[in-house]
């Protein structure tokens, strides 16, 4: 496999875009909300759109964008200044734009929206800023708001006072102290976080939207946000037509480690506890487990073996710092997983990044970064990554391939039994899906920290991936999308 062409963009900054190909045209996005349309077989540019970002844009972790959605000749993109824009896919001309929320309060967009049946679905960033998270549906024709689902309910966010996480381990909560704090103040739901910053999945048959909600705000200081902080760190299912709640499953109640639920849910049939194949939905957790749910009610069927080290779980943050081998970027970050249904395997990109967690009391700062503490690397401790294959029906690890750096960007599995994943050092690797053996690699010259995609034009298969590095892990920046073919 060799490069067929390379698209060079005008923006030398972190790339997280998933190239989207429709009718032989590839759409890619860059940091700062540029969109390019190019010929998907030659790379020749058709148009270039640059969003005029307003005076206020608030984002924690780089000016990223993860891609566009397309339907009936319209492209949809979320922007750093918290707008949703619709472009004409042929010309790149702006058709409409709608302000989603107030960027002064920490709302911003880096995720790729989902478009289905005339609705554009998008969540929000801002778990580091004290937002109130949501998923909103906009009319694809007009940009008008259709419905809003708040990830933080105004009542009942204290939940069931869960003592254990989804895997049954005690989280060392001081529940009497939390209950006393709640009696004093329960109004913090407006700043409790719960951003939804990765793309939802849709089951059209049951007209259900599945998404994961991120961490509570502030990240590390939990004393003034007592309770389970529902529905943070949860998978949530809502009705596609009304946005009404169907079910949720919370992985970590009252999180104080920034261990969001973030890698996007994947819909796949799975074996239930009775050995029967049923519609399932899976999530790769920052905890390092893959969670397998019954799609109809959210019940947890199983969780995988831990893909990363979990020493010190769940040590509470302290002013001086407490070490956990699981860092705040988690065992799986936002990186989308891939599934090979035939092999019954899910593939995840892992980070091994030990950190110390520090807490500092801090009041809501009015739309500024609000961590309530700090994370630090542990001096002298090695950081690395894995690509891990997990059997969906048993939860067992089938293979694990080690990489020299923590992995962020995502994984692609093809029907030809190949698994693709990029690294911060510029290597894009193809693994044997059955064994994890590296079969091919190509040096892209900048961090490959975006999800690879596969597409076919006129019967010829291509693999496309952005090599733009990553701002969060400070991997070497680039400005290119590489496209490979046989």
């Amino acid at each position: 496999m060799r490069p067929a062409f390379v698209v060079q963009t005008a923006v030398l900054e972190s790339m997280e875009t998933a190239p989207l190909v429709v009718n032989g045209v590839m759409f890619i996005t860059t940091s700062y909300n540029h969109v390019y349309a190019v010929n998907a077989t030659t790379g020749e540019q058709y148009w270039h759109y640059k969003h005029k970002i307003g005076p206020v844009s608030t984002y924690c972790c780089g000016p990223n964008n993860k891609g566009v959605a397309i339907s009936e000749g319209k492209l949809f993109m979320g922007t750093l200044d918290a707008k949703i824009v619709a472009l004409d896919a042929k010309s790149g001309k702006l058709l409409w734009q709608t302000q989603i929320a107030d960027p002064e309060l920490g709302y911003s967009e880096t995720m790729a929206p989902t478009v289905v049946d005339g609705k554009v679905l998008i969540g929000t960033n801002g778990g580091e800023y004290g937002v109130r998270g949501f998923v909103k549906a906009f009319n694809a024709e007009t940009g008008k708001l259709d419905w809003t689902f708040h990830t933080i309910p105004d009542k009942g966010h204290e939940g069931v006072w869960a003592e254990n996480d989804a895997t049954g381990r005690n989280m060392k909560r001081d529940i009497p102290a939390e209950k006393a704090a709640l009696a004093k103040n329960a109004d913090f739901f407006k700043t409790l976080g719960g951003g939804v910053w990765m793309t939802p999945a849709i089951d059209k048959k049951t007209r259900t939207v599945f998404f994961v909600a991120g961490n509570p705000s502030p990240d590390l200081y939990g004393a003034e946000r007592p309770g389970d902080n529902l529905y943070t760190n949860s998978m949530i299912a809502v009705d596609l037509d009304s946005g009404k709640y169907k079910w949720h499953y919370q992985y970590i109640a009252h999180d104080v480690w920034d261990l969001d639920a973030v890698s996007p849910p994947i819909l796949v049939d799975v074996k239930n506890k009775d050995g029967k194949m049923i519609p399932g939905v899976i999530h790769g957790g920052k905890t390092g487990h893959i969670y397998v749910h019954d799609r109809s009610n959210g019940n947890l069927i199983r969780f995988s073996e831990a893909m990363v080290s979990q020493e010190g779980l769940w040590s509470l943050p302290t002013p001086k710092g407490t070490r956990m081998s699981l860092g705040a970027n988690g065992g799986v970050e936002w990186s989308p997983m891939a599934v090979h249904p035939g092999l019954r395997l899910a593939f995840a990109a892992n980070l091994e990044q030990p950190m110390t967690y520090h807490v500092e009391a801090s009041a809501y700062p009015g739309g500024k970064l609000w961590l309530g503490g700090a994370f630090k690397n542990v001096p002298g401790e090695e950081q690395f990554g894995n690509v891990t294959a997990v059997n969906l029906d048993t939860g067992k690890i089938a293979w694990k391939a080690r990489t020299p750096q923590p992995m962020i960007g995502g994984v692609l599995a093809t029907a030809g039994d190949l698994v693709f994943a990029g690294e911060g050092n510029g290597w894009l690797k193809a693994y044997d899906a059955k064994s994890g053996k590296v079969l091919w690699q190509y040096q892209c010259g900048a961090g490959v920290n975006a999800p690879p995609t596969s597409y076919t034009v006129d019967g010829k298969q291509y693999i496309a991936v952005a090599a733009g590095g990553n701002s969060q892990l400070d991997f070497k920046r680039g400005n290119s999308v590489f496209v490979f073919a046989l």
Partner: protein
Amino acid sequence: MNVRFLFILLIALSSFLLPAQAQDIEAGKKKAEACAACHGADGNPIAPMFPALAGQNARYIYLQLKDYKEGRRKNALMSPMATSLSKEDMLDMASFFNAQKQAKNNFKTDPQRIKAGAAKAEESLCAMCHMGGMSGQNEIPRLAGQHPDYIITQLKNFKARERNNDAGNMTSLAQTLSEDDMVNLAHWISNLY
């Protein structure tokens, strides 16, 4: 169409087409005259104890001015200066300083300290918020090229919680830094220009 009318139309159009930010910068320049005594007329300070504002992120400058005005950040010189500023004043000045070119400071850095500072910065995950090269983003300040005197003072203030308008992040991190760490970080940051 007569020529005079065309001329007027062009003038009208050109002012209409000017980006809003350009007007803010002009307004900001005038409003920033009061800042020049310490921060320099172009945002490059007259003494190392004052931060360079030239090239600083507009959002950071705006939010710090707002914090001074509303009492979340306190300084004997800055707090009284900020009390009479309107939101528009702050935004205009922020745009003006952001548009100025940062000059290299004349501090002589120590290579050993730069190396130690770089290691401490990696451990402390500075780039996670301040970005690679400490170039800053949004409300997270650009640090590259600041004079060590200013950086050390701020880190000490964070550690002593005398500056605590950071929502717990820098105050928490500063608890883990010794004075020597602060000096090393300041050398590394100063050298990033």
